[in-house]
């Protein structure tokens, strides 16, 4: 992997050390090992990652720039298990030309990869704490590596709570996994949808309504949130009203990206480059910037 940092632990907010001085704009060709359909418009792409010594290829929360040769390149969060060697997994929603080109790849096709880039979820910071994961829509994808990490190092963390909201049951990601995780001890998985049909026996309502079914201990909880910005804003409000401080809350932000490495200037939000100061931010840093109209 050119330009990517191979890391063991990384705290959110502390960006990764710069990678080797390779040209970070050159993609490495990786073969597609598997393509899974998650929903009607979302697919998970599994790529073979060459090289490496078995240590993690990325930290939870990071993203790669994925290149569909000749079509385009996009930032996509890595959604796989950092503890699984040799694989890079991406959950991609088909919304345009480039994403369509990526999700229609077959096993054996090649995709270009640059990265991993960006800051990561506070897996070290969260040790010894209750972890509250709140995801909306495709926002569960960059959080799944955090869940994998916690499950692999279960003894390092206390209670795990996952609150997940999607548009409708057919838009939900990783349903089987979520169902399986429900049975784990010290783990609470709650899902809700905005629009439910008769066959859906779960909660219906926006994801903030799930909080009342949890027991939060604010002084020992770390929260990681990812989803549409509106959702994240309301979730933060809910968490603060329940006693979490700005240092306990982390979000993953998103802006237009062209280079992913801090040169093109497109991803700026206030003083931050989302690609290198983020995408994961402690709320303390994002406070005052997120939600400003036309910032």
């Amino acid at each position, binding site marked *: 992997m050119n*330009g990517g940092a191979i890391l063991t632990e990384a705290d959110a907010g502390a*960006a*990764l050390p*710069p*990678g080797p*001085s390779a*040209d*970070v*704009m*050159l*993609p490495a*060709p990786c*073969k597609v090992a598997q393509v899974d359909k998650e929903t009607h418009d979302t697919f998970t792409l599994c790529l073979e990652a060459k090289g490496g010594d078995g240590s993690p290829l990325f930290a939870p929360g990071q993203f790669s720039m994925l*290149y569909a*040769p*000749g*079509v*385009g*390149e996009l930032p996509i969060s890595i959604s796989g298990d950092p503890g699984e060697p040799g694989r890079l997994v991406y959950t991609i929603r088909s919304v345009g030309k480039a994403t369509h080109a990526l999700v229609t790849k077959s096993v054996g*096709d*090649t*995709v*270009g990869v640059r990265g991993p880039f960006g800051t990561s979820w506070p897996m070290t910071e969260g040790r010894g704490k209750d972890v509250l994961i709140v995801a909306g829509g495709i926002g569960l994808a960059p959080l799944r590596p955090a869940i994998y990490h916690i499950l692999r190092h279960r003894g390092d963390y206390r209670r795990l709570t996952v609150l997940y909201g999607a548009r409708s049951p057919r838009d939900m990601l990783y349903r089987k996994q979520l169902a399986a995780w429900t049975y784990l001890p010290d783990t609470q998985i709650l899902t809700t949808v905005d629009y439910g049909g008769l066959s859906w026996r779960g909660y219906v309502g926006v994801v903030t309504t799930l909080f009342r079914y949890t027991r939060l201990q604010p002084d020992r909880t770390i929260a990681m949130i990812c989803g549409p910005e509106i959702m994240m804003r309301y979730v933060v409000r809910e968490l603060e009203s329940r006693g979490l401080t700005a240092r306990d809350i982390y979000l993953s932000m*998103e*802006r*237009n990206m*062209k*280079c992913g*490495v*801090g*040169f*093109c*200037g*497109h991803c*700026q939000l*206030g*003083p931050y*480059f989302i690609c*290198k100061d983020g995408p994961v931010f402690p709320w303390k840093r994002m406070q005052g910037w997120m939600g*400003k109209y*036309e*910032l």
Partner: protein
Amino acid sequence: MIGSYLKMLQQLAFGKEDALVHGQTSPLLVTAMATTQAEPGTKLVIEVEAITELISRLRGQGYEVIGPTRRDGAIVYDSVQKVEDLPAGWTDEQAPGKYRLKNNEDGALFGYTLGAQGWKRFLHPPEVKLFRVENDSDGFRIVESASAQPPPKYAFLGVRACELAAIALQDRVLTADWYADPVYAGRRRNLFIVAVQCTRASANCFCTSMGTGPQVKTGCDILLTEIAGDGRRFLVAAAGTRAGAGVLADIGAKKAPAEAVKQADRAVEGAAAMITKRLEVSGVRELLYEQFESARWDDVARRCLTCGNCTMVCPTCFCVTVDDASDFSGQSAERWRRWDSCFTQSFSYIHGGSVRLSPKSRYRQWLTHKLAAWQDQFGSPGCVGCGRCITWCPAGIDITEEVAAIRDGAQAAAARE
């Protein structure tokens, strides 16, 4: 302003092999702006005719020499071979939205203030083919890349103090942050700088406010100050690096008489005295962050065309876009990097819309980034006070006026409370 974070740059420095006490240009530009208190290097003099010899020597060393030329009614930085290529006897008149060349009587080579564009297009080119790929059995293969090509060797002749500061700012952004841009770094590493101090200022200059000039303190290979008048034309010269000293020796530079040195100092002071515009830097970061909703933004939005001229001529603006396209057969594809501007509607496009759709929000983004956010990102404001954005704005928008107006608005609002 620039000095304090140049100290920080020094932590990132590579070797300083070529540096002299006076100033340093390291192989990797980062230490180009050295932090040690500059002791004056030995002052020399050269005749105007020696400029041709200077250019030849540099060409002999493999440099393409880029210097000021007169073209299309403006001073344009382009290839030069001899002193006659320089715009002797020409000066410029600048005002908001205005640029004219005029003859001056003293026949000075460097009597203008600034070229229309800066040196940015040589170090951070407007278009770069980042790579070309071809399909093969493994998927694709990179057959060509910008970073694998040997970078050109440029020697810049006529770099102003503000332009040196701008280069240092781009060094910080493009080579001294998390990742380094090999295209910029390669050209920068090869760069030979002949700086020329300003002996006059245009009506749009405000380098004194930004702490970037008109005096050049450090960061070049050769520093020249042209004295022209009373029928005499010569240049006071000093070396900033060993390489510069070598070239000066080769072209027969002699020790400068004390009077010449004094004349040069006075001329630079004279340039400073001509500056009329002011930008109050102290507190500008907090001011622009706090005044996010200032009425002044609506006011400037009524005038701003969002044409992006300012970003094109600004020597520190670095934003680029990346485009991928394949050929008709689909057998090969190229990725290109091109200058971009935060003034475009699509700059902030995400999820079906632009975050900054209104012209107001885009102007505010540019100015706030340049003077405030840049400080958080890179340790100092991103503006060097060259005034090009004022000159080349078709609406004549003057950022020094805008900042002052925002400050006045803020003070008036505070007084009302």
